[in-house]
């Protein structure tokens, strides 16, 4: 058996070389180049179906958790080789944002559900620990249906920041036990506040990084809600920023309207918020005044990327919305 497998492999490889076998292409720019692997995930779609693959996080053990709005398994858990380890959740028709927080040893998940108009905190196995309902007492909402949260970020003190990206574009700050403390942002400042992250790149003053997706911009807010900076990203409909080390990663859902134009790619910013690579997108170019030329898709690797998950080795996992029920792709850094 072993010998046959070895023979098959060596014959395949030999024949591949003879026939001019080409590996998967490499995409990206500068130091951030990746070999595409769309076959990373080994899941059987019959057993573990997905509709939209929304967001992904790692737990401490390197397992990948992903939200999908298929209520047959709202959360899929993969190992690094793309095999399904666990699947749970049948009650989240609008399962979207996914954030993992380490509560002093205990890891928990925050799931936003824009269909249920709620944010739900669960254990890694799916036990519900806290439910945050629509902010009736904020005075900003007529009824629960106006609250359609897309994302959460957890502050340094455990406060929960919720981005109401499909609702009224407010950022709502809650205490760890779910008490509303502050509301900022809103449609005057944010257009489709789809994602939010704790920006830890300046460890002396952590801030919030929020995507104003329809405006093609990232906005930095203080934890108290003061707008500190607008970072224009022309051509980039940014889903959510993901901060790792000195860099920010994000999926660009589309680079031109309409929303199902299939023109997405991935982006990486350096510490100065300059685009250093756009896998699947145009080579980032800045004019002499440091304005970014509009970005656009160049290679149709992705249709509508919705989230990027960088691993410790610098590889990326990319989940997609409305892209033919595909599982996440793997981009191996080269």
């Amino acid at each position: 058996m072993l010998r046959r497998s070895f023979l098959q492999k060596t014959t395949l490889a030999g024949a591949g070389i003879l026939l001019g076998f080409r590996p998967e292409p490499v995409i990206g720019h500068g130091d951030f180049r990746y070999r595409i692997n769309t076959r990373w995930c080994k899941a059987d779609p019959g057993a573990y179906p997905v509709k939209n693959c929304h967001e992904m996080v790692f737990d401490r053990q390197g397992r990948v958790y992903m939200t999908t709005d298929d209520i047959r398994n709202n959360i899929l858990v993969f190992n690094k080789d793309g095999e399904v380890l666990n699947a749970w959740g049948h009650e989240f028709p609008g399962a979207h944002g996914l954030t993992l927080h380490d509560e002093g040893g205990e890891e928990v998940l925050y799931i936003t559900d824009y269909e249920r108009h709620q944010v739900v905190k669960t254990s890694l196995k799916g036990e519900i620990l806290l439910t945050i309902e629509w902010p009736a007492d904020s005075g900003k909402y007529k009824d629960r249906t106006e609250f359609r949260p897309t994302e959460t970020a957890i502050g340094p003190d455990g406060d929960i920041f919720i981005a109401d990206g499909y609702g009224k574009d407010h950022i709502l700050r809650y205490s760890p036990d779910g008490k509303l403390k502050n509301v900022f942002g809103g449609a005057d400042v944010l257009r489709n506040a789809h994602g939010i992250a704790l920006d830890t790149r300046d460890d002396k003053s952590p801030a919030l990084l929020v995507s104003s997706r329809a405006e093609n911009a990232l906005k930095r807010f203080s934890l108290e809600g003061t707008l500190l900076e607008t970072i224009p990203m022309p051509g980039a409909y940014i889903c959510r920023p993901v901060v790792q080390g000195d860099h920010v990663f994000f999926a660009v859902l589309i680079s031109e309207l309409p929303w199902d134009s299939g023109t997405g790619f991935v982006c990486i910013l350096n510490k100065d918020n300059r685009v250093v690579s756009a896998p699947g997108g145009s080579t980032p170019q800045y004019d002499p005044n440091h304005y970014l030329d509009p970005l656009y898709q160049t290679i149709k690797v992705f249709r509508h990327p919705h989230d990027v998950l960088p691993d410790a080795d610098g590889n990326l996992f990319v989940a997609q919305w409305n892209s033919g029920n595909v599982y996440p792709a793997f981009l191996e850094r080269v």
Partner: protein
Amino acid sequence: MMKYFLIFCCLVPALVAAQEYHLAPPKIMPDSIFFLQHSTVRLAFALDGAAIHFTTDGSLPVQSSPVYNAPLSLSASSTITAISRHPEYITSKPARVQMIKAGFFPDTTRLLVQPDTQYTGRGGNSLSDLQKGGSDLHDGRWLGFRGDTVEAEFVFSKPVSCRQIVVSTLSDPGSWIFPPRRIDVYGETASGTWQHLGNWKSTQAYDWKQQAVNYALYREVEIKQIPARRFKLKVIPYGYLPADHPGAGAPAWLFLDEVIFQ
């Protein structure tokens, strides 16, 4: 063994060949889609090793078509069609932009029917500013009408003799925006009477489910050439949304952003 090896050689390309990816079409970026004298067009596709091939007559570019290397200067109406090519990827679908040269430019444009209050643009000026509306319908360049027949009057400083009028509209059936059903053009004769100069009407049933969003839908109305200082345009909207549309029975929207006299 040799036999199996040969079988493998035939199978291998299908089994392990890298997935092939399409290129996206290049970007076509005109100074102005509508113009009086000339317009400059830049093409862009920022991918190492890629080339843009283009034509200006609306035909599909091929490998032997010119390679873009500098901005194009146009002095006549043209349809720019461009593709991206790269040795490692499948050639893109074409990108296409129709550039329209105006022969005459009105002094004043007056709306005889007012647009919906959500989409007032800059009033009549929106139809005569050589500005193309974009995908943001609130960009101030679009006028949106809901159900009414649109009437507008165009006044020139001296009599002009036009052969064609181009009405720039859009179609986005999913957002209840349909193209017009009929357009009529009238001109004021030397004796001060209005004469019907021509019309355009849709000749095919409009299958809204098959229509992509199109922000640059041009309706060309050939007209009788008489010198006139004043022209009147009547644009009849689609009417009520069809029975299989989610908004069935409600009036379709009509959007206009420019009227060009050639």
